């Protein structure tokens, strides 16, 4: 079985990260924005795992790291959803571009 | 605590007394302020006497240490005075007493806060003149900013807030430039003590850095002095601040610029100042003539005096540029002399404002008719300002020109045009007010009362004493002069 080179993972992760970032910056729906952020974090996980397996000094650390990342990503979304619900109660909507009450 | 510390912190007695007294009736507040303003005066006379007696006044107390690499930088709380500063201290306390006295009839509201800020200001100024290292100097220098800001902003004239901001911005910039320069000295010389820093730079050969620091000094003190084109704030302050405050401002605060230029500029970096001397001379010339010609066309007495101050500060610059004994002594004399004269002027302006509510030259005329004594004092102040022999202004102008002619006769010759212009604008302004026909616009005016006459007379006596027998202060500054001259190599 030929191993897929490390670069391939890295490029995939990079693409994933960029897609996530693009979505996070452009989508109106807050939930999609949150999902896109998840996408970015998953790109990180991909990186970590790939490095863990194929990097300079392969080891388990990268995978452990990615576990932490997943957990925290989950927590982030949970908090995000909670806040969004509070917002929804006020504005009856989930569009991120409507959040412009605070500005100069 | 030595006498000097006692002196520097003595204004706090008044401040605390006022604080403890709380908001009393106006009269009590004023009485407390007046009496406590005498304490620094008494102490400063004591300091002067001790200095004359030759007893050491310096104090030192370790304060902060920095370790930069193998270097340990120490900041001390150290006070000391030399001939120049002891005279300026005396000037400060005298003018402060008079300003407090005169403000008691000028300040109608919130006198409680006013006097507290005045004492804070006096504290800062005394500290500036007593500090023996640059950091301490800077700290006191900055401390003067805050009370000045409020005093201008709260009790000033029409554009008081704008003037206050203009004051704080210009002086803030100046002091920040100073701070960088001080930091640079601190780091390179490892000390900020005046004499130690001077010693260091005498032997070091970092010419570029020294020149940079010298230019920074020139800018920083140039704001304070002020040097064209950094003068706008000062005109505003002169015009819009309460006259009692301008007594201190024009009388003492501007002198910090001269003091700094002479003591740090020439004292610490004589070599760079020799390089800069032509520039300083030209700046001085510009100040002298620019101020004089502008003073000629002003329609407001206080603007005339403001530009006149700029013009007179040009003379200080010329003296500094001369970099010889006569020039520097002249600059020192001019600092003291201009301090006294402008204090007298603004004392009179305050007196006038109480009566007429305006100092517009178009509105004033023939004041000598109803208030001959006030008019007489104005005239005398003008004569002092234009350098009439027998008054302090002459001695300083003569000495400066004596100095500048040795090194830069051409600059000196052009500068003498300023002497002529001074006469022209001074007489124009003062004669416009006091001479001519009296137009009855202000109703009945009383001439000076005792409370006004005495402060004015005290200032006048100081001016005349220095003018008639300049050795009263000349002998005191000789030691400073010698120290400076060693640096210049003259």
């Amino acid at each position, binding site marked *: 079985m030929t191993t897929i080179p490390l670069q391939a993972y890295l490029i995939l992760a990079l693409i994933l990260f960029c897609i996530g970032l693009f979505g996070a910056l452009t989508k109106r729906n807050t939930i999609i924005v949150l999902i896109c952020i998840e996408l970015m974090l998953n790109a990180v996980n991909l990186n970590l795992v790939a490095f863990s397996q194929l990097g300079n000094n392969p080891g388990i650390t990268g995978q452990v790291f990615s576990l932490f990342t997943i957990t925290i990503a989950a927590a982030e979304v949970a908090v995000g959803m909670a806040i969004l619900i509070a917002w929804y109660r006020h504005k009856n909507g989930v569009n991120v571009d409507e959040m412009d009450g605070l500005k*100069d | 605590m030595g006498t000097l510390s006692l002196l520097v912190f003595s204004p706090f007695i008044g401040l605390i007394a006022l604080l403890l007294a709380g908001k009393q009736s106006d009269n009590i507040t004023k009485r407390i302020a007046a009496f406590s303003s005498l304490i620094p005066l008494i102490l400063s006379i004591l300091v002067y006497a001790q200095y004359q007696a030759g007893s050491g006044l310096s104090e030192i107390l370790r304060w902060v240490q920095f370790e930069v690499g193998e270097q340990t930088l120490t900041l001390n709380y150290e006070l000391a005075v030399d001939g120049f500063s002891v005279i300026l201290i005396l000037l400060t306390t005298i003018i402060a007493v008079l300003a407090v006295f005169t403000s008691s009839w000028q300040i109608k509201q919130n006198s409680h806060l006013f006097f507290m800020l005045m004492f804070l200001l006096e504290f800062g100024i005394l500290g500036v003149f007593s500090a023996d290292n640059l950091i301490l100097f800077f700290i006191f220098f900055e401390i003067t900013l805050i009370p000045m800001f409020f005093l201008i902003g709260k009790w000033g004239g029409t554009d008081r807030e704008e003037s206050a901001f203009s004051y704080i911005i210009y002086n803030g910039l100046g002091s920040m430039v100073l701070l960088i320069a001080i930091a640079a000295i601190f780091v390179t010389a490892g000390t900020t003590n005046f004499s130690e820093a001077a010693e260091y730079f005498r032997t070091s050969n970092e010419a570029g850095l020294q020149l940079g620091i010298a230019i920074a000094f020139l800018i920083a003190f140039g704001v304070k002095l002020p040097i064209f084109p950094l003068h*706008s704030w000062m005109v505003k302050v002169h015009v819009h601040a309460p006259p009692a405050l301008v007594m201190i401002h024009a009388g003492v605060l501007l002198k910090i610029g001269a003091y700094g230029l002479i003591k740090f500029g020439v004292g610490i970096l004589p070599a760079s100042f020799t390089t800069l001397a032509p520039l300083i001379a030209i700046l001085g010339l510009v100040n002298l003539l620019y101020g004089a010609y502008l003073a000629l066309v002003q329609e407001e007495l206080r603007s005339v005096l403001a530009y006149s101050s700029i013009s007179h500060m040009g003379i200080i610059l010329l003296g500094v540029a001369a970099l010889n004994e006569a020039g520097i*002594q002249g600059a020192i004399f001019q600092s003291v002399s201009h301090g006294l004269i402008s204090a007298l002027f603004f004392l009179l302006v305050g007196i006038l404002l109480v009566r007429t509510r305006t100092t517009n030259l178009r509105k004033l005329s023939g004041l000598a008719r109803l208030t001959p004594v006030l008019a007489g004092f104005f005239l005398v102040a003008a*004569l002092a300002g234009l350098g009439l022999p027998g008054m302090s202004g002459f001695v300083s102008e003569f000495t400066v020109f004596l100095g500048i002619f040795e090194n830069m*006769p051409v600059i000196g010759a052009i500068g003498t045009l300023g002497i002529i212009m001074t006469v022209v604008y001074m007489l124009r302004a003062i004669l416009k007010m006091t001479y001519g026909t009296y137009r009855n616009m202000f109703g009945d005016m009383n001439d000076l009362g005792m409370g006004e006459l005495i402060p004015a007379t005290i200032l006048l006596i100081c001016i005349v004493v220095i003018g008639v027998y300049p*050795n009263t202060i000349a002998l005191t500054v000789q030691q400073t002069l010698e120290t400076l001259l060693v640096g210049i190599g003259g």
Partner: protein
Amino acid sequence: MIEFAWLIPALPLLTFLLLIVLREKLKKASGYVAVLISGITFIVATLVFLQLIDVGNFLMEWSWLTIGSIDISFGILLNPLNGLMLLLVAFISFLIHMYSLGYMDGDQRFSTFFAYLSLFTSAMLGLVMSPNLLQFYMFWELVGLGSFLLIGFYFYKNSAKQAAKKAFIMTRIGDVGLLIGLILLFWQTNSLRFVDIYQAVTNGDMSGGMITLIAILIFIGAIGKSGQFPLHTWLPDAMEGPTPVSALIHAATMVAAGVYLVAVMYPLYMASSLAMMIVAIVGAFTAIYAATIGLVQNDLKQVLAYSTISQLGFMMLAMGVLGYTAGIFHLFTHAFFKALLFLAAGSVIHAVHTQNIKEMGGLNQKLKLTSAVFLIGALAISGFPLFSGFFSKEEILASVWAEGQYGLFIIAIVAAFLTSVYMFRLYFLVFHGESKLTLDKVKPVPMTMKIPMMVLALFAIFSGFFNTSWFGTYIADFLEEGATYLEGIHHGSSIWLMLLATVVSLGGIALAYLIYVKNALNQENWKTSGTYQMLLNKYYMDEFYDNTFVKGSRGIGLGFQYVEKYFVRLIILFIGDLVTTFSRTGSKSQTGQAQTYTAVAFLGLVLFAAVYMLKGGY
């Protein structure tokens, strides 16, 4: 007695202080106090002078200003020259104090007037006793102050205000020359003492060019003070002051200080023929220039003022042609007869309350004494034989001739001729002809005014005999005693010169008589002529100055005002605007859109990376 010489300036100073502080309390008495003290001053001065004749020289010094290694002193110097001046000033001052008692009677600021007068006297006495140039300069300025205060005594009059200002400024211009000169001199000789300066000149410590430069600069000071062309315009205006002031300051003493200055610095001038030449030319030109103006003026005091300028020109001319004693002698005699003329004019004005000679006439009926003393003064100034002016003026002419300056000699002769013409024009118009004033307007002249006039009249007649080739050259001998550098430049006079002077003087008087008494010439014809208008308008010098220097200065001031408004302020405004713009832009970009915020951050990252790559080459 001579040790108490310091009392001479101190006493009038005391009067000044006393009167200025107690002017409300003393009121009328202040006049008597002033007269009394000035009398004492005169007595002290006389005693000192008498002792000085024996002693010859006297010097007292105190350290005054220490500047590092430089030590400037203050002191008293007495020598023949300033001893003579001292006496002269103290004497005339005393007389004029007395005269003022009557003249100023009833004035609201009676005490103030005497205070100012005393201040001036003090300064003038201090001036002549100065042992060094700086002290000289200081008193020089202080006499200017006295003059200023007294010219502007009627402060409520706009013209007085302007005149006072002008006097101060014009003389200040000259003073600056003096100041530069003395500073340059200091750096040449390292001293300001007269003796050291003489020494330096004698030793040849200074280059010739430098001596000339300094001499000319110092002469500029003299020009200013002595009303020489081109700084003369203040002197006629100075007549705005009360007349006793004109007599004391603007005729007898202060204006002569310029001549005195040249005399004091004489060694310096002697070392530079160019400087001497300039002094002579300026003097001669001023003499004829002022005389021509004096011919047509209609204000009594103005004519006298121009006459003063002209006479001062004579003195300068004398100085410029090595006629040291002649110049001082003329100063001496001029002090008496010009003071006399002014006092006489003052009593006329006091009596008739006008200064316009066109409104006067026939006053010799009403003011007999005044008319007589005026005539004496006029004869003296015209150089009528045996009057004091005759001797001094003749000596000046002799000096000019002896130096071989024939051009200047002719000018001097013409000027002398014009002097008699305008003086007698004045005399005839004021005291002869028909009276144009209603008689009841004429007030009697009080005794306090008469006595000084009579005393001065005596001196105007006889003071010439102090220095004649007939009876002895006392003054010249005395002066030369104290000034060794004057040896061997004595100009003897000759009979033909005396005759010439007499002819010139009589000719002038005769011409005036023909024109103004006999009306031999049609005066109306001139009045339209350009020359007449030019003379009447004083060669348009005032207008010239007004349009150039005064307007010019104001123009520069206004120009700077523009710089202030549009350059300095604009820079500030620009910076202010810049700050505001940045501030507003920064604030506007804060839209409230969370995604924009991150987008900006991401953009920052991209820029960050891009710049890095461009720079680092990755």
